């Protein structure tokens, strides 16, 4: 049981829990205490230190803005103005929109979750209300009535995840086959090298605009979710380069010994590719795919923001323009959610990589 859980944790890249489990099992107390200190206590300490610094910085910035407002009120209408301004600040009428404190972010996060619960409840109620009508409409061959209210924060997270996965699979299905073909042929490799070098550094915003130009024309008579299509294609195109380059590299640099084996055993092209070239380039292909996932998640926010696809990017942008008292706190809350999801996606890829590759050292 103990060994099994340690094995699983290491496998999914959460090995830092290992000493805690060993300690609980009463193994080599001193050694595991030190390991625990290093792997868990120190990271927790650094997070704590970060929170303290953040809090201090936030109050400093808050005070700078507050002092400035009071100073200005004093200049305009003297002591009465100062008292009035202080009161306005207290009631939130005069908002101080600086860096929010950790506490404010936590509160904003809770608000977002509460908001999600109330929207879910509303949706359920709506569904119940229109159930009878929808049944009738279906009989008449009409589209059912759907909820068109504002999506909750959690809904937006799922929209973003959907976009990232769609983009990732697009990148996978484009970049891996093309990478294999380029890797196998040095002629093709040098033919396409310039194009690849030119397109690789193009920024997410430009990819979005390019995709927008094309998809907009192609979907003129389509009334589905065009913003989703545009964003996932743009995400896929932005993120596929790491996989393309790594696959090409992996396929073109297969160990010479293996190639000699293929020659000596008289393997045909198909056998050579599927039995030797591909398996031996798996570690590099997966390194590429891991980078692709993180790039996809990173560019997603910018692309959603531009495409108005209802995901986290749109959320951040709307909150920024909203300028409410807790908008900044919500943006920071979203930042942490984005970061944590990015981390989990990377762990997920890491685990898949370990499953399919043959050398564990390759998956660092």
């Amino acid at each position, binding site marked *: 049981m103990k060994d099994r859980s340690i094995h699983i944790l290491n496998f999914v890249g959460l090995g830092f829990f290992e000493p805690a489990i060993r300690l609980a099992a009463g193994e080599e107390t001193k050694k595991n205490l030190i390991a625990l200190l290093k792997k868990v206590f120190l990271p927790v300490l650094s997070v704590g230190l970060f929170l303290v610094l953040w809090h201090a910085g936030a109050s400093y910035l808050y005070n700078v803005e507050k002092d400035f407002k009071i100073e200005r009120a004093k200049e305009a209408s003297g002591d009465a103005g100062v008292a009035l301004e202080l009161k306005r600040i207290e009631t939130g009428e005069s908002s101080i929109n600086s860096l929010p404190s950790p506490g404010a972010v936590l509160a904003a996060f809770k608000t977002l979750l509460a908001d999600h619960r109330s929207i879910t409840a509303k949706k359920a109620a709506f569904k119940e209300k229109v159930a009878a009508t929808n049944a009738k409409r279906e009989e008449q061959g009409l589209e059912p009535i759907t909820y068109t209210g504002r999506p909750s924060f959690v809904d937006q997270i799922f929209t973003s995840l959907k976009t990232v996965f769609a983009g990732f699979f697009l990148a996978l299905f484009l970049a891996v086959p093309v990478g294999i073909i380029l890797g196998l042929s040095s002629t093709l490799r040098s033919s396409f090298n310039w194009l690849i070098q030119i397109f690789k550094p193009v920024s997410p915003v430009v990819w979005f605009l390019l995709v927008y130009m094309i998809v907009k024309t192609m979907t003129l008579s389509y009334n589905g979710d065009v913003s989703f299509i545009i964003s996932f294609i743009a995400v896929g195109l932005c993120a596929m380069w790491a996989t393309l380059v790594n696959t090409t590299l992996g396929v073109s640099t297969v160990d010479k010994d293996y190639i*000699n084996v293929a020659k*000596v*055993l*008289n393997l*045909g092209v198909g*056998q050579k590719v599927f039995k*030797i070239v591909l*398996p*031996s380039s798996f570690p590099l292909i997966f390194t590429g795919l891991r980078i692709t996932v993180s790039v996809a998640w990173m560019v997603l926010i910018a692309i959603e923001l531009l495409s108005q696809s209802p995901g986290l990017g749109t959320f951040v942008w709307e909150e920024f323009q909203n300028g409410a008292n807790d908008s900044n706190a919500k943006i920071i809350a979203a930042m942490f959610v984005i970061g944590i999801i990015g981390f989990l996606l990377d762990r997920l890829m890491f685990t898949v990589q370990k499953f399919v590759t*043959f050398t564990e050292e390759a998956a660092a």
Partner: protein
Amino acid sequence: METLEQKGIRRSDNGLFEDKYMLDISQLTKIYPTPKGDYVVLDDLDLKVKHEEFISIIGHSGCGKSTLLTMIAGLNPISRGTIIANNETVRGPGPDRGVIFQSPSLLPWMTAYDNVMLGVKQVFAHGTKKDRDDIVKYYLSKVGLEDAMYKKAKELSQGMQQRVGIARAFALKPKVLLLDEPFGMLDSLTRGELQDVLIEVWNQEKITAIMITHDVDESIFLADRVIMMTSGPRAKVGDILEIDFERPRLRKDVLEHPDYYKYREHLIDFLEH
């Protein structure tokens, strides 16, 4: 007739003496182009190997032994001269020549069985599935791996991996077996074990074998003739030593044979000058 047989000359079906040697290398030259100009590794090298003969090649590191072997295997282009193997001019790799590399070069993501099957499938494409399965299992048990057949290659020790390498080469039923320091990376105990495995399978299969080694004792124990190559550049065959021990040989008998130290001294003498 007796003497002709001994020289490796056989009477072919039509009664003519044409099928003389399994391997006939003449005026073989290899030039590697380097930034500092052409580097002539081998220059006009001649070597003839009889049917079912086991020869070993020794020579200083870098003299061109691997170059020679890879050219016979068809993995390395020939600059000048010819190599005729089994009456056909070598133009590339072929199933008539099997190779055992220094590093076992197994595909680590496959089992021992699949590693051997990979080539067997190619060479015995017309046989039944059962036949192929039998061949793979036969050779794997010959090298003592009946219990480790389905282990992934990366889980096997170096010695066991090289056993798979031996099985993989023999399973393809080559006419000539080429070995490039196959046991060079093993400790001396494992090396001895694998020499025994190799010579046992070879005794049954009776194919022509050419083995590069830097181990003088290994070359005496295994070979009918030891080819000594001169140091490069422009290496060629410097000297040939016939080893007259009975076959099958036992290691103990060989070590106790009165001629053993004479042979050994001859080889060491060559290498030291």
